[in-house]
């Protein structure tokens, strides 16, 4: 009863749960334009799922699997799948795992896609991120059990927490669920202590230990986190969309959301997006008005490009941005190969390359 009253009071006064607060991009997250200045390795429609395959870069673009030769100049298509590739992972032995939008998981060698092993499980139909454990098992993030990978906006706007973590075990590919009720796990990283999951809709990194205990490693991110990969002694975390006050507010307005989901086309929702391309039908916020021919970089935006470098303790030490007026938004994947940081801007349609400063490599900038 008291909690009900408190909720009612909070809703009325805009406090507590009803408060619309977004953590600022400050300190190590101070905006720059690194991503805008990065070299464009290749243009693609919706590049995603960058993996280091023996020193070479593999990435997906829709259903296409591509390979970037070492110099990063020559880009070759290895295979075209019927369904979009939604997740990829490589193990130390060179085994590639591919997750498809329909729910199938394929394992094998990238050069022989036709002969890959196909694993299908009815409850595992939205693989959005994968990683191999050191002992060889594949961890799969099921983003949502109610919405497909393309419907991630709907999943957020419906405030779903139906994601799960699955393990594909052994040679016979036995599938088992390790964790459930996750708010869109969009990245996973096996570590000695357990699995680190980036829980997108709760803007945090979560450690799930083998006993199932959950610990928050990094909280209050200013955006929705996607893939998490090791880099040097630290890690890289992709933020695929920014949080904004208006969207946070809409997330607290159930009746408006219900009607918006029902009456408005998804691309024109007040919801985060991957791409910075603007339409005349998009919702516009006051600060986002073009003045004197310019969109301000600090304008409120539904899309953003951000990669955060974390140290060994999962704390941010550096960040690379593409701001509101930039092009390379919707960064869903990145990978560090030797001294190059490759970044997939799914919304901006490009694979980018940043020469990594030695300074940041160890995660120890102090």
């Amino acid at each position, binding site marked *: 009863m008291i909690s009900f009253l408190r909720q009612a009071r909070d809703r009325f006064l*805009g406090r507590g749960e*009803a*408060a*619309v607060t977004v953590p600022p991009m400050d300190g190590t997250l101070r905006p720059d334009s690194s991503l805008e200045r990065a070299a464009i390795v290749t243009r693609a429609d919706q590049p995603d799922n960058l993996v280091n395959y023996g020193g070479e870069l593999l990435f997906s673009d829709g259903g296409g699997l591509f390979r970037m030769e070492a110099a990063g100049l020559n880009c070759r298509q290895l295979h075209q799948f019927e369904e979009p590739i939604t997740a990829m992972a490589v193990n130390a032995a060179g085994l590639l795992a591919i997750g498809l939008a329909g729910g199938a998981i394929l394992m094998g060698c990238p050069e022989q896609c036709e002969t890959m092993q196909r694993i299908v499980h009815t409850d595992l139909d939205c693989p959005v991120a994968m990683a191999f454990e050191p002992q060889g098992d594949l961890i799969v993030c099921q983003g949502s059990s109610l919405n497909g990978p393309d419907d991630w906006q709907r999943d957020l706007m419906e405030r779903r927490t139906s994601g799960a973590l699955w393990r594909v075990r052994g040679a016979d590919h036995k599938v088992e669920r390790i964790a459930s009720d996750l708010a869109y796990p969009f990245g996973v990283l096996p570590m000695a202590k357990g699995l680190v999951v980036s829980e997108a809709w709760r803007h945090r990194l979560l450690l799930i230990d083998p006993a199932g205990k959950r610990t928050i490693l990094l909280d209050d991110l200013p955006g929705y986190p996607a893939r998490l990969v090791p880099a040097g002694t630290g890690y890289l975390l992709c933020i695929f969309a920014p949080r*904004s*006050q*208006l969207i946070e*507010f809409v997330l607290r*307005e159930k*009746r*408006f959301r*219900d*009607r*918006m989901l*029902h*009456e*408005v*086309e998804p691309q*024109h*929702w*007040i919801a985060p997006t991957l791409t910075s391309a*603007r339409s*005349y*039908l*998009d*919702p*516009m*916020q*006051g*600060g*986002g*008005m*073009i*003045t*004197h*021919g310019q*969109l301000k970089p600090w*304008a*409120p935006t539904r899309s953003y490009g951000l990669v955060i470098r974390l140290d060994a303790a999962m704390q941010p030490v550096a960040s690379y941005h593409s701001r509101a007026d930039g092009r390379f938004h919707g960064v869903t994947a990145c990978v560090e190969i030797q001294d190059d940081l490759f970044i997939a801007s799914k919304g901006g349609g490009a694979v980018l390359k940043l020469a990594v400063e030695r300074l940041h490599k160890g995660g120890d900038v102090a």
Partner: protein
Amino acid sequence: MTTSAGTTRSNQDIRSGWADSYAHWRYRLVPDHIVGEILSKNWIDNAIPVLTLVISLIAFSSLIPNMLSLSSVSDISHTSGEYLLVGLGMTIVVLAGGIDLSIGSIFALSNLLVLACGGFLGLPLWLSILIAIASGGIIGAVNGLLIGFLRLRAFLTTLVTMIVVRGIVDTLQLRYSTELSSFEIGSATWDFVAFYTFKGMSISFIVALFLTVLAHLFLTRLRLGWHILAVGGSRRAAFNAGIDVRRTVFITYVLSGMLAALAGVFYAARLSSLGSDTGVGLEIAIITAVVLGGTALGGGRGSVFKTLLGVIIVVVITNSLVRLGLRSGASPLVLGLMLLTAVAIDVRWLKNRHKAAQKSYVAPVFFALPAMQSCAPGTASPYAINTALGAAEPIGLGDVDAPEDVVLDRDDNLYCGSRDGDVLRFFPPDYKRYEVFAHIGGSVLGLAIDRAGNLLACVGGMGLYQISPDREITKLSDETNRSLLSVIDDSRLRLADDLDIAPDGKVYFSEATIRYDMHDWIVDALEGRGNGRIIRYDPSDGSSRTIIRNLQFPNGICMAMDGESFLFAETWGCRISRHWFAGPRKGKTECVIPDLPGYPDNINLASDGNFWCGMIGMRTPAFDLAQRMPGFRRRMVMRIARDEWLYPNMNTGGVIKFNLQGEVLGSLWDQEGERHPQVTSMREHKGYLYLGGIFNNRIGRIHLPDADPEWTGPTTYWGEKS
């Protein structure tokens, strides 16, 4: 829309329909905007005291029979008169940032002195009264010297004088008690002062009322009064402004002492008694009255009329408590509680009123736009988005700021307004050179050229102005008739937007909104209410009259060239209407285009007899939905930062051409939004179209291949130059 016609309505649709009907009626019947408007009024400070008075009057008159009878009122008026006199002095002191606790003792001393001088010493009455008042003035001067010149703490100093004076009074009273009690002042004047009432009002009350009016004039109209308020508002700023702060403070205490003494004289006349408790606790009652009335204890804010109100409340309540037969002690207790409440309200109110007014000012209502016309690029729709304006040649790039409207004269000169309050003139043929034609001082939002070649301008925040060819600026109109029921003063023009001139010289101009100023104009989009109006200025007698009210951001106005009607655009309403001001249909308004896909701005004539209309932005499905959910918009305004608010999409704009039948003949857009993301105005002139934009740093010009290369606006309106 995801549901297509023909399928059965889903539960969601039905729910939405109900919600819409509810919102429609709810926001139609309850005028939410009045809350914010009332809260931003200055007189709202008096709301709580007035309410307290009304409630206590109702409560006590229901508890006590005959409470409002004549004898009872006259009883109250005696006490009120004395309290009010003391309260006036206290108000003056508090307004200057001080406090005077010694008034109760001064009151008692004055009572004693007037009785002693007039009775026991046998001095003439007028002299006794003067001595009594002078004694108050002297004690006040002591207070003033200590606090004003020696800068001691007001609270402690007056506490000390209170005790010292009380001591003197008690000593004198004890010493001469027998002498004092054996004499009485036998004077008809004295009795008259004591007992005469005029319509239930005692002499003391009438005098106090008279002095209240004087004190009000003193505080609001005289130099010293202003100084007192300035010192109370900010001592340091007052000092820096050259005000003699010490003298000002000194004077407030002298006035306070004299007024308290005068009250003591009336008390003496009324009771002729030398009770030892005369004036005890008076300071608490008076401070309560002053604060309850709404004068801030911090100084600088308040008035004597507030004190009048506070005094009446205090007297009514204490009097009623006595008559209710409450035990002695209850009255000071209630008074103390009232003081506590009043101080708390004073502090909270002062801190939050402005915030509350600001937060509740934006008051959205339900507004459902008709289904959206398609403007998908590459389709056959007359609205199909294209990139025609992306090629516009820039004029004055970087030199102009916010050229909302542009106009060309007979000599091909190009005029535009700017945010700096200038009217700029660009010279033909290439429009590379320009000069400041005139400085008006406000944002120029609408321009037109009259028969005599004068430039008429609607200036945001200022009104309708005329600039003659030799640059003489004349104000034509800055006010119209006040409407009867409007809370905010709508006689002033807040946001004159666009104008056009009828053949008879009358000027029809729009005022976009009466609720927002120039810098806030776009916030009006969130309300969805008809806040704007169209006004007619008559040059023959210089008068202005509102002719159409409750329009949703009326913007562009253009004569329909039939001599009896004009077209006007309602920006947030997404429609264009026609109004007849003469002829058989006089007074009628008819919608020409009800369902524009964007937000129309200025309307102007095209060379082929049709009309151009600028589009400042586009409708978006999300904002259209928000327009149907007023509660959503209200909470948005309260919860999130201003830059994050949802607005119509103003990053794609263009120009449409339409005719009087409402047919849209075509459109020109800047799809990328790089050069002309918002088009607020356009003028056709000799085969070119000139474009203005309120957020732009340029004027655009595109060639119109099919247009008449000789056509100009002034010639079409006023004929060839004579």
